[in-house]
């Protein structure tokens, strides 16, 4: 059951990703990316990271993609614009390089260079405490400093976005 679900969702994710990079209309591209992100949220649920899945849908599929669609609406883009491509010969080498990159990553995965040591948070333990509660506890104890720095980052980003949006730059 879990295996079938993984293969179906993985196929949807990859197909929508392929549609995204070949889609001419940016609005449809954004919709394909939303579908990709929702599929990844389903994979997070399969990996028993429920809170991350919820945040993925709220932050990525909700906030960030709405921002993208909003900007596409503001810019009023011409779809034919992409026709005047100055580097048409870049397409084939780019795809070949992509395949080469994928091969390299697969070799690294197959060589099992990516090893790590097991921690205490087994599925049974996480289920007794609760995924969200555990994340909240860690966020305010072990990861308190990065959490606080995050607030500064978001503050700086907000100021930067407001400055860039001023009429006279």
């Amino acid at each position: 059951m879990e295996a079938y679900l993984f293969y179906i969702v993985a196929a949807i994710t990859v197909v929508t990703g392929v549609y995204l990079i070949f889609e001419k209309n940016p609005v449809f591209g954004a919709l394909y990316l939303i579908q990709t992100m929702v599929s990844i949220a389903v994979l997070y649920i399969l990996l028993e990271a429920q809170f991350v899945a919820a945040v993925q849908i709220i932050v990525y599929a909700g906030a960030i993609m709405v921002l993208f669609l909003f900007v596409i609406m503001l810019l009023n883009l011409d779809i034919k614009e992409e026709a005047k491509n100055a580097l048409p010969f870049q397409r084939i080498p780019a795809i070949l390089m992509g395949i080469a990159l994928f091969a390299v990553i697969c070799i690294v995965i197959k060589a099992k260079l990516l090893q790590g040591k097991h921690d205490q948070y087994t599925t049974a333990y996480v289920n007794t405490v609760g995924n969200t509660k555990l994340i909240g506890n860690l966020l305010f104890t072990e990861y308190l400093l990065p959490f606080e720095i995050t607030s500064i980052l978001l503050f700086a980003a907000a100021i930067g976005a407001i400055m860039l949006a001023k009429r006279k730059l």
Partner: protein
Amino acid sequence: MITLTHYLVLSAILFTLGVVGVLIRRNAIIIFMCIELMLNAVNLSFVAFAHYLNSMQGQMFVFFIMTVAAAEAAVGLAIIVAVFRNKETVNIDDINIMKW
């Protein structure tokens, strides 16, 4: 049985799609969306590692990556809007005044 390798290969496919998208597309907004796709691919491998190594560190890192992605989207889209106001285009071949 789905193993860690399945998730890592899926993550690699998504990351590669993002890289290819950045290389072959000329629309700045679509390039930006491909960058988001790459960030998502990395997040997926983080959560997969966290699950298979019985760790929470991967999930914690995903939160910080999402924060950075949100900040990056806000600032990046503001830059694209500012560029569009000045040059009336988001085609990156036309935005080349910093080339030399």
